[in-house]
């Protein structure tokens, strides 16, 4: 998959255009997202988190699970979305293995992340906020931004604008050297 850069024909001059990776992989992802909607439905991820809470609480606190309207609304963990999340784990693992790329255990991205522990703290805090925000909005990057805008949904456009607006502003503020 990494080698989708077009190999120039023999007769072509030296200025042959190299297709950047984001373009070739973006086209492939667009085809995958189209195939999903043709086969079963749009891709999505974030609903899996509360469905997981539901699956656990039905075991350890069945009364809470049965009386919580949100867990009842989200339903069983056995859904296409859960399968997709399992696939993400496998796909990430396989692609890293096959390509031989080694990801850092922790990417330091803010000036305030002066220790690995602080990086973990930021990842955790970010994780809380993205899922809370996604559940409030009814979808995340894949459900609202990719699938939503692909289907020309107004909700996807609104969500995408809010995410990138707040994200760019926050990244700019944090960059000043005081992370979170």
């Amino acid at each position: 998959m990494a080698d989708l850069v077009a190999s120039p024909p023999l007769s072509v001059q030296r200025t042959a255009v190299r297709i950047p990776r984001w373009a070739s992989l973006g086209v492939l992802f667009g085809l995958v997202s189209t195939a999903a909607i043709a086969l079963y439905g749009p891709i999505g991820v974030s609903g899996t988190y509360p469905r997981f809470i539901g699956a656990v609480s039905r075991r350890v606190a069945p009364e809470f699970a049965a009386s919580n309207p949100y867990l009842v609304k989200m339903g069983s963990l056995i859904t296409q979305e859960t399968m997709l999340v399992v696939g993400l784990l496998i796909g990430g693992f396989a692609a890293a293995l096959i390509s031989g790329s080694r990801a850092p255990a922790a990417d330091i991205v803010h000036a305030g992340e002066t220790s690995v522990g602080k990086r973990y703290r930021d990842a955790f805090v970010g994780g809380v906020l993205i899922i809370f925000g996604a559940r409030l909005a009814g979808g995340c990057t894949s459900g609202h931004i990719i699938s939503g805008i692909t289907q020309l949904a107004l909700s996807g456009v609104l969500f995408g604008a809010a995410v990138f607006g707040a994200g760019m502003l926050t990244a700019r503020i944090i960059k000043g050297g005081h992370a979170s």
Partner: protein
Amino acid sequence: MTLVYALIVGVAMGALIQRVGASSPRMILASLRLENLSIIKFMATTIAVGMVGVYALSTVMPMHFDIKPTYVVGVLVGGLIFGVGFAIGGYCPGTCVVGIGERRKDALFALLGGVVGALLFTLVYTLIETPLIKPLSYGKVTIPSLLHVSPVVVAVAVAALFLTAVALLPTERSRRA
């Protein structure tokens, strides 16, 4: 059978996210700081190809569309909270799973945070439903339905706009002085 399709779609999606670098918080922050737009360009290309693909196919076969409802307050407030978390952690709900697959430890913390976030949302859902989810709720609104224009036409126009922007904007801000 659809569970198998979803698993295959997930594997393909996970591999593409890993290869393009979207599971790297460094790449996400570089996008949000407008230093390297390759992830944003990847997403815009995906969406452009997808919208033409689904609406072109819809003219010849039934498609499994599923439009998310527009409840303006919840979608916008949720998006703002998401955006802040996205910039702090550098992960989204799917990319942290891909990150765990490629053995990023911070991705595991993002996932754990996500589970806590889901639990918090579950606990406050009845409190926030009335002020944030019920107001300005318009149901499944699409841009073609608002404009009264054929979805195929809108898809081609928006895709052309996205691809033009992606082709014209520089990917990297060069400041190596």
